[in-house]
């Protein structure tokens, strides 16, 4: 029950951040995907099943605020959550550089999948906003790795305090 509550709060947080970003400027929505950050962060922490469910929720919420086909974001984020949780259980992604690289690969995979699914479903070329959208995986990876770095630092400080 606690996990479900956390997942719900994480989705609300993503909506919160997405709303702030949308208010700041439309370009920010293109380069920054708050829902992907939440999915990646919780998938690595909680594993593939949790990641897949959270990916479903976050993806569908993202789809609800978009005119695109409902479910495309849900599908890509479900797979993102599952992959991230699954791989992070088998290899150590804790070191900063490895963590950043892992997040970047996952984000790129998500984008590739999203482009493919959208192209198949809508049968038309996508708008890449002059290449701006290609920055999204990089921004997602940097933000998620930063979250882990901050968390590690806080834990280290907490343990030194004990």
């Amino acid at each position: 029950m606690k996990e479900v509550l956390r997942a719900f709060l994480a989705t609300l947080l993503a909506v919160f951040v997405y709303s702030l970003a949308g208010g700041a400027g439309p370009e920010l929505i293109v380069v920054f995907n708050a829902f992907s950050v939440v999915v990646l962060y919780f998938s690595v922490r909680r594993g593939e099943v949790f990641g897949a469910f959270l990916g479903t929720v976050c993806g569908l919420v993202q789809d609800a605020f978009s005119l695109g086909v409902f479910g495309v974001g849900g599908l890509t984020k479900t797979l993102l959550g599952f992959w991230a949780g699954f791989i992070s259980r088998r290899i150590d992604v804790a070191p900063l550089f490895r963590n950043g690289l892992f997040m970047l690969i996952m984000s790129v995979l998500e984008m590739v999948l999203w482009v493919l699914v959208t192209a198949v479903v809508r049968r038309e070329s996508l708008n890449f906003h002059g290449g701006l959208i290609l920055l999204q995986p990089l921004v997602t990876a940097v933000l998620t790795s930063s979250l882990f770095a901050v968390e590690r630092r806080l834990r280290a400080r907490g343990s030194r305090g004990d």
Partner: protein
Amino acid sequence: MPIWEKRRSALILAGLVAFHILLISIQIPRGAEKSLFEKSIFFLYSPVQRAVTGAVRGLGSLWTNYFDLRGVRGENQKLKKENFFLNQDVRFLEDQLQFFRSEAQVRERLAAFQGKIVPARVIGVDSANPFQTIVLDKGSLDGVGKDMAVCDRVGNLVGRTIEPVSLRETMVQLITDKDSSVSVVSAVGRLTGSLTGRSGAVCELRYVLASASGGQVGEELLTTGYDKIYPAGLRVGSIRSIEKDERSPIFRKITVDPYFRFNTIDIVAVIAKAGGDEE
């Protein structure tokens, strides 16, 4: 050990993927109509978006109202509001004068039009592509429904309301969306066509025959009202370029710069019912 225990993760993933594929599949024949499920999610989360935007704006206005010259600011806001309605009225008057000779008829039309404008704030933009949709803080309780024209504060066309329309929030399809279509006419050459977006900053004017006369770069485009969604005479944009369409030689390739800008659509006007419908 049962297969469920051994392959739990894979089975859950397969179930979720199957769910999404089913979800996507059932929408394909539905076109633009939103599913009940999608509407439910929008209803559930749009108040959060509204609360966030409201809280941020509230904090911002608290700061400025307290420390700024409050009297001047209040007066300024009042004037802005009056200006907002006046701009809409001026646009409408200009448009209607083209159609009606009698002054009395114009007055009658204007009186009816004034009561139909619903001012709204933009509380969100499309999560996948900002040139597709925006979300407004007015819904069915405020008299907003599907297929109503939305203009910016100076009367330039922004888009139309689409489903989902919740009690206090509404989604708006921008004219820059690639699935959007607006019947327009050029102000001088009376060149008619269908304006569609490209999900980017520029739109295109489609179905203009290569043999059609009229239309120059920089010429203003106005709505015709033929589509029964947008009232006639709303300013849409100006012609950016006119070229020969290589792929379809019978048509001209015309690109259009829409007038509305994202930095000026913090407040918009929903035209609750088209003024020129009854013509």
